[in-house]
């Protein structure tokens, strides 16, 4: 029954990856920024949820909500304190802005990681799941929490899709990712659009972080690997393509889960990494990449 186990676990983990990756690629698509503090934001949300419910006595629902809010705030602070100043800076030539933003967000991520380790130690923490219990399906036992995780992820993904394709504000975001100049011509301030995109990203990263904390637990050491897997997925799917990230997340999620079960957990990351290398050389724009 290992096949079914892989199917279920892979599905949940992929959904989680997808949520994080879609936010990551949205930021890139609209503003061209690769946020290397992504993992730190997810861990912040998870640790905030854990601290709120385990240490400060809020209930698990309130704790989860606090975690998500922390993710949102973290993303906005990242934008205002790190990304926006570099973009505006007159001292940095245009061609080098990208590199500076990459280095700046990387440093910011390290700072957050160290703060978390300082205040809450670097031991792994698991956030209390909202739903307890186990489900038995064809001889395979999976925690209800896992199904819950997958469900919440997909609900959020559906909401995101509906927003971008149906809501007026969402369509403006989509248009901005295609042509920022066009959107300015129509009277939309790109500044406000950036803030909106970072806020959405913060919510996505926050939810993904809290769910991850409930499902697998996090520690300050998770920061690096989380960022690495998010951008591997985003590059595979195609920088800027939200649908591409979704597909790539499932490819990577299943590759990792299958490898962990069939070969060894220690080798989990290798097939996905090799796939990434192959794609980089054969089709650098990824599955569905545009830019």
């Amino acid at each position, binding site marked *: 029954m290992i096949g079914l186990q892989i199917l279920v676990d892979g599905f949940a983990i992929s959904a989680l990856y997808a949520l994080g990756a879609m936010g990551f690629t949205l930021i890139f698509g609209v503003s061209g920024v690769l946020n290397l503090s992504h993992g730190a934001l997810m861990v912040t949300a998870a640790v905030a949820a854990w601290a709120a419910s385990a240490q400060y006595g809020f209930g698990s629902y309130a704790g989860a909500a606090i975690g998500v809010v922390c993710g949102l705030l973290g993303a906005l602070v990242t934008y205002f304190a790190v990304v926006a100043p570099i973009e505006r800076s007159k001292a940095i030539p245009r061609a080098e802005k990208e*590199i500076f933003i990459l280095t700046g967000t990387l440093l910011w991520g390290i700072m957050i990681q*160290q703060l978390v380790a300082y205040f809450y130690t670097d031991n792994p923490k698991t956030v209390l799941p909202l739903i307890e219990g186990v489900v038995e399906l064809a001889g395979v036992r999976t925690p209800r929490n896992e199904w819950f995780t997958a469900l919440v992820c997909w609900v959020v993904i559906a909401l995101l899709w509906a927003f971008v394709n149906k809501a007026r504000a969402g369509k403006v975001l989509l248009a901005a990712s295609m042509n920022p100049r066009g959107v300015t011509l129509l009277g939309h301030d790109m500044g406000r659009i950036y803030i909106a995109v970072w806020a959405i990203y913060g919510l996505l990263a926050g939810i993904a972080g809290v769910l991850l904390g409930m499902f697998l637990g996090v520690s300050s050491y998770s920061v690096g690997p989380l960022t690495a897997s998010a951008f591997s997925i985003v*590059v595979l799917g195609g920088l800027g393509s939200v649908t591409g990230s979704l597909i790539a997340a499932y490819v990577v999620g299943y590759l990792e889960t299958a490898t962990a079960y069939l070969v060894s957990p220690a080798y989990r990351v290798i097939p996905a990494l090799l796939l*990434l290398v192959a794609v*980089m050389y054969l089709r650098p724009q990824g599955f569905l990449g545009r830019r």
Partner: protein
Amino acid sequence: MSLIPARFILIALPILVAAALLPLGVSGYILGLLTIAYYFAVFSMAWDLLFGFAGEVNFGPTFLIGLGAYGAGILNNRYGLDIPLCLLAGTALAVIGGLALAVPALKLSGPYFGLVTLVAVLLLQNLIVVFSDLTGGEIGLTVPDVISIDADTNYWIALGFMTVSGLILTAISRSPAGLILQAAGQDPVVAGALGFNVAKHKIAAFAVSAAFSGLAGGLIVFYMGTASVGTLIDTSVGVQIIIAAVLGGRRTIVGGALGAVFLIAAGELLRPLGSLSTFVVSAAALAVILFVPTGLLGLASFRRAS
């Protein structure tokens, strides 16, 4: 345009002499710290040749360092070859690995090149863990031979290596070859129209950067007696190298050395803060990037040029 300008010698010489005299009055612990700092200085200077001049961001300098370090280390650990031979082999491995990475990667534009370099590091990291019976895995590799057990000797070797590397890298950056490299990095289209095969020059720069990084990596292994993922390959190490180069001033070569020494010294001074020390250094580096992007040396030369 001279290869090594006079004012450079005027300023650097007294500093180097003072540095050479340090072992006479300073503890072995500090000497050890500075020894590591000097090897890091070479990492950063080699990185700046690639970034500041060829205009290519290498997000995984530790890929090259790791190849040099583990190449030399494994040969010594497994086959007991002499140190100089191991160093040569390690450097060669780093150059070959660097070229294997660079030749296809330079065809990619935009953020993809940087991403490929980062992926190379992740791959190396995972391969080392997977083949742990050869490499020592996460625990690390120990080598039976070391260059010397005397702190002073190690210090002088590191200082000497850093000085020679710095001189060579600076000379390259100021030579006609360096001029072509700068043009190629700044505007490859115009450089092509002036008759320069841009790809050839960038690959050569990569090879030089790889050679110095690999050699320094090997030397560090034979200084510390060990090599491990955490000390030499982890992305955090790569980030420190990049920060050191940017902090000291990109496109100056020497800035990388200044930045590296500064970072290691700062990290040490802040050690009592515990894990917050990394936080403070990162915060300081971020502040430099935001407010003084030309770095420490950049400030000085800017005043001179304007």
